[in-house]
């Protein structure tokens, strides 16, 4: 029996609310600075959250990521520079509204849709995750193997324009995962006598290297912008929001549904959710097809609901199967392990209060977003005034401290540097990160489930398709690859690396899908 009073007490704990409040400011500021992504906000939080209790730690991550995804809209609408890649899809629409003197509408639409998307997908999370967990209880190593294979296939598919480079990235991530002691016999691999390598490279230093250090390298020549900001007063913000939500409720609902599903697919995150929702709205929605202000609002709201919905969607596979939906939940999973909570179906049985408290935090964070988001819109002028020359050195110190604090070794500081350079080269050569990150996280699960199954069956490969559930997953994996290869052969529906070109700015960090008309 779930103790609802305990959940309520945990959610309304003053310390937790204080952390939600503080991290909401942090997330909003990071998201509003172009070039700093939601993922970076989470990666830089890790050294802080490792010293918190489990629930506040995850609350901090949920709040910071949700806020950063929303506040990326603000510079998009006011400066035509998306603050995070997730806002790139509708930046032109939002900026267009601002130029016609309707910045409050553009930002109000983004804010209320983000809140609605976040709340709706949190509802889905609360209702869908426990029933999925009941099914997952009957999984054996075979099912986990296929599930991980499915996850990796999705990661390659959404990774970028080149299937081969996506695969190469995936294999690189899997290779990183094999460094250290092998999961079955404990024999050291690729350690070359270095004791620091025995426990592997560490997920957090690699993520900091990929997503923070490589971004610093890429933006090293960006020292400032001469843009003048017309900051939107929020006098009319609260007045426009209810009307917007009423007129565009269908778009918001559709966007939230798309976002939740895309978020749950491993490898696809908020940016892809926003692009897909935007493209679908443009094609199927009566309002979304229009080139008028009304059409722009519909598209902004559908895509904005979608990117915030994807944040909660990613927690479905993360909490139910322990398979992260994106890099943020990958961090959440490793923080959970650090704190002694192992994600997976048994978590729903043994600690239902913990998991429901985590889900409830989505409601708190998204409700807090209304006043805090409005404040951030008002205070955006101050955020823009932070000179970029000062931001990078502070982030670098946070990266170094982050690498050090998680494992307390100078070795992991070195890892963030090497991976940062590698990430910079990969990004410049269109080798996507997402498959490598997924490979790194799912690698041990794949290897362990593969090896234990092989050892149990004494090398009989048929065991992978003998159980009905396992066979169904195997068919799904084969289907996924057929779709990938067919799509490749016919050249349709492939993600295309064409980032929106913001004027003289740091470009966004991730490959994005071009809208196909």
């Amino acid at each position, binding site marked *: 029996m779930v103790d609802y009073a305990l959940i309520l007490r945990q959610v309304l704990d003053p310390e937790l609310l204080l952390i939600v409040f503080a991290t909401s400011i942090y997330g909003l500021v990071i998201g509003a600075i172009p070039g700093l992504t939601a993922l970076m906000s989470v990666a830089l939080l890790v*050294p*802080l959250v490792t*010293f918190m209790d489990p629930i506040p730690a995850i609350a901090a991550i949920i709040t910071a990521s949700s806020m950063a995804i929303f506040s990326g809209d603000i510079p998009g609408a006011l400066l035509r520079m998306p603050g995070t890649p997730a806002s790139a899809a509708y930046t032109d629409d939002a900026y267009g509204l601002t130029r016609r003197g309707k910045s409050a509408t553009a930002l109000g639409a983004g804010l209320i849709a983000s809140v609605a998307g976040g709340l709706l997908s949190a509802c889905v999370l609360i209702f869908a995750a426990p029933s999925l967990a009941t099914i997952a209880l009957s999984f054996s190593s075979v099912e986990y193997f296929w599930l991980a294979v499915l996850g990796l296939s999705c990661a390659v598919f959404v990774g970028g324009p080149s299937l*081969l*480079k996506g*695969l*190469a990235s995936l*294999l*690189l991530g*899997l*290779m990183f995962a*094999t460094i250290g002691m*092998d999961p*079955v*016999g404990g*024999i050291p*691999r*690729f350690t070359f006598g270095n004791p620091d390598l025995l426990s592997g490279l560490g997920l957090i230093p690699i993520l900091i290297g990929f997503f923070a*250090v490589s971004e*610093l*390298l890429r933006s*090293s*020549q960006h*020292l400032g912008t001469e843009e003048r900001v017309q900051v939107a007063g929020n006098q009319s913000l609260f007045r426009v929001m209810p009307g917007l939500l009423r007129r565009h409720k269908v778009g918001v609902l559709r966007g939230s549904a798309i976002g939740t599903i895309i978020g749950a697919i491993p490898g696809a995150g908020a940016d892809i959710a926003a692009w897909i929702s935007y493209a679908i709205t443009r094609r199927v929605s009566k309002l979304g097809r229009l080139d008028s202000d009304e059409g722009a609002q519909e598209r902004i709201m559908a895509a904005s609901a979608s990117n915030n919905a994807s944040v909660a969607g990613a927690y479905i596979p993360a909490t139910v199967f322990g398979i992260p939906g994106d890099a943020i939940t990958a961090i959440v999973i490793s923080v959970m392990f650090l704190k002694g909570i192992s994600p997976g179906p048994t978590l729903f049985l043994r600690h239902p209060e913990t998991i429901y408290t985590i889900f409830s935090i989505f409601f708190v964070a998204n409700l807090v977003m209304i006043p805090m988001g409005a404040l951030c819109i008002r205070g955006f002028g101050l955020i823009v005034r932070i000179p970029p*020359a*000062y931001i*990078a*050195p*502070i982030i*670098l*110190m*946070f990266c*170094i*401290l982050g690498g*050090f*604090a998680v494992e*307390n070794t*100078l070795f992991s*500081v*070195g890892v*963030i*540097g090497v991976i*940062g*350079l590698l990430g*910079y*080269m990969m990004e*410049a*050569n269109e*080798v996507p990160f997402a498959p490598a990150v997924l490979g790194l996280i799912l690698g041990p699960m*794949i*290897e362990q489930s*593969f*090896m234990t199954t*092989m*050892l149990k069956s*004494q*090398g009989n490969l048929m065991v992978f398709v003998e159980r009905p559930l396992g066979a169904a997953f195997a068919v799904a994996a084969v289907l996924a690859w057929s779709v990938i290869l067919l799509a490749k052969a016919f050249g349709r529906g492939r993600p295309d690396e064409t980032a929106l070109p913001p004027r003289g700015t740091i470009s966004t960090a991730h490959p994005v899908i071009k809208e196909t008309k």
Partner: protein
Amino acid sequence: MKVHDFFIGAFFLIIGSGICLYASQLPVPHHVKYGPGVFPAIIGTGMILVGAAIAFKSLSVAKGGKWLERPSWLESPKAAIRFWIIPASIPFYMLVADSFGFVLTSMVIMSSMLWVRGVSPLRAIITGVAVSLVLTVLFASILKVPLPWGPLTGISGHLLW
């Protein structure tokens, strides 16, 4: 820094071959059929195939790009310093932090990075000192991260509580 896709393919091909070679030398325990080398060998073989495919495709369709595209940080010596100071700070920190302590090392890294990014020397030093102290209070005092103190060990008691 963008290079021709041929090099990308060659990179993965070489790494894959190295992995396969290493995996083949891993010992297989007597009582089990599948040793620790099986999974790395699969990955290595995959990398060889994918690397070869990337390299082959880049040459056959002639759209692998230029052999080498000049990165933006090669435009001027200043730009190069602004770029390389970031990766250089990390080995610098690893070498120096234990003997000189976090506070002093961080001050040097922060101030010099601010300076090469166009901040006036005085401002760079003041900001470097201030940020390093704030970070120390946050991480060492509040979060209890065992940061090295170096020559400042004697006064560390005043900052740790």
